[in-house]
């Protein structure tokens, strides 16, 4: 478990940096059409802002902003958005992931519908990548303990005792 180590400089700088990082991550996802970027990169930047929060404060403070249940839901929802857009194209009469048929439900022409399809897919990828990065980091950093776990304190004490005996 990463315990809190009070340091005014680190906490203030990360408090200023985290919103800027998250805004930049959203910008990278949303502006993937015109500049280098996209779902994978933007999702990683969003996850990095959360990991910075865990390192600068501790896991409990970070989890109060983003609970693990919400994180797992986002992880599944991201892949669901991607597959859902693909299946929506099939339902509307096109091929799987053929976004041009989305013009039947969007108020745009088929060319712009492909643009919108790419944007939707990138948002899904960004959510999935962000949630998976956070999930892997949290599970490794907290040794798999989570808020709903009954005897997390005793389990962690047992592990540290074993470490000391070795």
């Amino acid at each position, binding site marked *: 478990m990463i315990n809190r180590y009070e340091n005014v400089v680190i906490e203030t700088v990360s408090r200023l940096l985290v919103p800027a990082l998250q805004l930049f991550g959203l910008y990278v996802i949303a502006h993937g059409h015109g500049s280098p970027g996209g779902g994978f990169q933007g999702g990683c930047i969003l996850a990095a802002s959360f990991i910075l929060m865990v390192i600068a404060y501790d896991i409990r403070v970070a989890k109060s902003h983003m609970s693990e249940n919400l994180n797992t839901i986002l992880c599944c929802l991201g892949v669901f958005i991607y597959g859902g857009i*693909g299946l929506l194209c099939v339902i509307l009469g096109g091929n799987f992931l053929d*976004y041009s048929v989305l013009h039947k439900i969007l108020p745009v022409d088929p060319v712009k519908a492909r643009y919108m399809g790419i944007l939707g897919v990138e948002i899904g990828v960004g959510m999935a990548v962000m949630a998976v990065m956070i*999930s892997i980091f949290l599970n490794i950093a907290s040794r798999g303990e989570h808020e709903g776990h009954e005897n997390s304190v005793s389990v962690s004490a047992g592990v540290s005792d074993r470490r000391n005996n070795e």
Partner: protein
Amino acid sequence: MKIIAFFATFITGFLLIYATVDMPDWGDPNSPPNAHVSPRYIEKVILETATPNIVTAVLADYRGYDTFGESVVIFTAGIICLMLLRRTSDD
């Protein structure tokens, strides 16, 4: 055993390097991918998808199935980490 492993590595590396010599030069305009697929994307990407960034258009539209597989791989990795590392109350 180490000698067999060394020879296996050596022969595989030799074959890989030998095959690399036959590859087209870096950035050769007459190589097959540069002569067929790339010009098609560069000419038609704005007309077909209205996306200025060709990389994004190829990633999410022309090769969307591949990217779907990538995101499923990442999702699976996350779920497997969750299953393996997370403690349940009975262990």
